[in-house]
């Protein structure tokens, strides 16, 4: 495959971008659409003290859940940890800080980060202390809103079905989920993809994430976990 933008690379090469104490944003929803090869690479490299940002903590052996179960994270910003009991256990023991954000607001905070906005105004969960605690309010047209800050990360990892050498991405069905948002919000974005196709072979009308947002592309070894429904 021609590599005119130098974006197509290897797992070994991109692992140099990961370090202890980093902020890491990940695509996926219940493990669906979370990049398996990158997760395993991060585990094997021994990266720890990570601040994770993403929809949920997967399942103990699925998706980002693997990093959480092996206690590689110090903090998680997510909407849900219920499918990963180890995350709940670590939280109760004070070994994992969890910041909960309502799911759609979390997605929108990530999107805001990805499109260069500092914050959004939200009326979701205003009467809930866990959501509203320590957040500034803003009065707009006589109505009270919470200021929800945008989220970005040092590195974003996403899982796509196809990429061309520029990093234009298309996703597979519901595995799209948070990936297009996460792809925009990384200072560095790495796409793990099932297939790399020649430049010009993706229908421009069907590209979901423009390659502008993607810095590195690596081939995926595919999902290597057993799903909860299997």
């Amino acid at each position, binding site marked *: 495959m021609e590599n005119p933008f130098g974006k197509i690379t290897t797992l070994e090469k991109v692992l140099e971008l990961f370090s202890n104490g980093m902020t890491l944003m990940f695509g996926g929803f*219940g493990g669906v659409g979370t990049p398996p090869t990158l997760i395993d690479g991060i585990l094997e490299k021994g990266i720890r003290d990570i601040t994770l940002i993403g929809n949920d903590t997967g399942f103990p052996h699925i998706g980002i859940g693997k990093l959480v179960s092996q206690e590689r994270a110090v903090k998680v910003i997510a909407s849900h940890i219920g499918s990963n009991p180890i995350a709940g256990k670590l939280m109760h023991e004070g070994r994992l800080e969890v910041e909960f954000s309502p799911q759609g607001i979390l997605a929108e905070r990530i999107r805001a980060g990805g499109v260069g906005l500092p914050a959004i105004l939200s009326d979701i969960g205003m009467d809930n202390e866990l959501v509203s605690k320590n957040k500034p309010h803003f009065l707009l047209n006589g109505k009270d809103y919470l200021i929800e800050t945008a989220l970005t990360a040092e590195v974003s990892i996403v899982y796509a079905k196809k990429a061309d050498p520029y990093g234009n991405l298309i996703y597979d069905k519901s595995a799209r989920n948070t990936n297009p948002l996460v792809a925009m919000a990384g200072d560095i974005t790495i796409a793990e993809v099932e297939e790399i196709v020649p430049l010009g072979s993706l229908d421009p009308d069907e590209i979901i994430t423009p390659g502008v947002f993607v810095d590195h592309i690596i081939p995926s070894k595919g999902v290597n976990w057993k799903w909860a429904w299997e």
Partner: protein
Amino acid sequence: MGLGVDFRNTIAKRAAEEIHNGMVVNLGIGIPSLVPNHLPKNMMVMFHAENGITGMGPSPEKGMEDENLCNAGGFPVTLNPGGSYCDSAVAFGMIRRGRVDITILGSLQVSAQGDLANWIVPGKKVPGMGGAMELAQKARKVIVLMNHCDKAGNPKIVTSCTLPLTSAACVDMIITELAVFKVTPDGLLLTELFAPYDLQIVANRTECDFMVSDTIRKIAN
């Protein structure tokens, strides 16, 4: 005091009556997931999932699952004709913009004012709110399907929720194995009773007062 499958289906069948052709509907886990089984075959309903599916179809046959086509709970589904995928931000845009007609969900407690508490048991279970707050606050109609009492026999329909709220004053209708209530500005209004229960049994198992409709519909089991 778990409910048998028949009771669960009785509740789901009643909830299905609220769904009309062309609606966009989001279903929670548990009893709500049984609702589609009770819809007329030719009815066109767009089932919505928070991860980014509009037009979800039934579970695939065993062996036909697609790991990249799952509902918000992570279980394989199918896509009906006219269905589409979007990212999660757009999926929640549909909710907040008022394009989701009905959300049907379970709950731990509902108050007489329609306050919903369905996401946290302090000190026990802190799973996170997921998409429940947005759905409860912004879906056009919020229907709660639940057992009338919890496993210990405590009423789940209460004067004021003791569990942390998902959202205040958001519930429009409650359907349990005993009765159907509408939430009105003046409190709960019992409109329907499931056989063989009577008003006294409902009153005994409900913590708050409720009004009773002039014409109570009695639904056979």
